[in-house]
């Protein structure tokens, strides 16, 4: 079974500061990794994904994440945040060994960007 742990439930930062949202996963097999963002009362939007290849993945809105297999981590980073980045962020995994790709989500991290 797979599980995802997001180490911070809330992260407050000031505008233009860097931010890191932490994600660790547990799996006995290789995984696909994703970060989704959810704005209030909206659906989930994919920020970036890791399927294979380069461990540094770049996504939309200036976000990037690094896959670290030895530490089973997939932390999300942005060098300079904006007010509009305020949202909830979910890390998720799926098992490439199964055919149907269901996602297992972490508990979410609420990012609040202050002016």
């Amino acid at each position, binding site marked *: 079974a797979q599980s995802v742990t997001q180490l911070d439930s809330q992260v407050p930062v000031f505008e233009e500061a860097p931010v890191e949202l932490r994600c660790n996963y547990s799996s006995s097999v290789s995984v696909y990794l*994703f970060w989704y963002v959810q704005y209030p009362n909206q659906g989930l*939007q994919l920020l970036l*994904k890791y399927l294979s290849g380069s461990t540094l993945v770049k996504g939309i809105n200036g976000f990037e994440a690094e896959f670290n297999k030895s530490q089973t981590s997939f932390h999300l980073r942005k060098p300079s945040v904006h007010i509009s980045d305020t949202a909830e962020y979910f890390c998720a995994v*799926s098992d490439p060994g*199964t055919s149907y*790709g269901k*996602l297992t989500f972490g*508990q*979410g991290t609420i990012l609040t960007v202050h002016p």
Partner: protein
Amino acid sequence: AAGVIQSPRHLIKEKRETATLKCYPIPRHDTVYWYQQGPGQDPQFLISFYEKMQSDKGSIPDRFSAQQFSDYHSELNMSSLELGDSALYFCASSPRTGGNEQFFGPGTRLTVL
């Protein structure tokens, strides 16, 4: 670009009533997933369909059933509703099975009174 369509967007029901949620995937997407997100919680996988057949099943109550139709749209049927069923229900679609990006709809917010 076309997105996943869910209807209705909001639904209010009484306890013990039934509800039907509909999902229209992105054209040429053959896999549909349903997730339930309770208040302040992460989305939980309920069920998925590939080519109109159930492909995987998660923590879906026996009171719930779902199917995918010939036009690939999917419906989630919920009976004997309970207060705890109040949640945001997401549908997602993907172009093929196995690890690819899932495109999420805006969700249906179900409130059970």
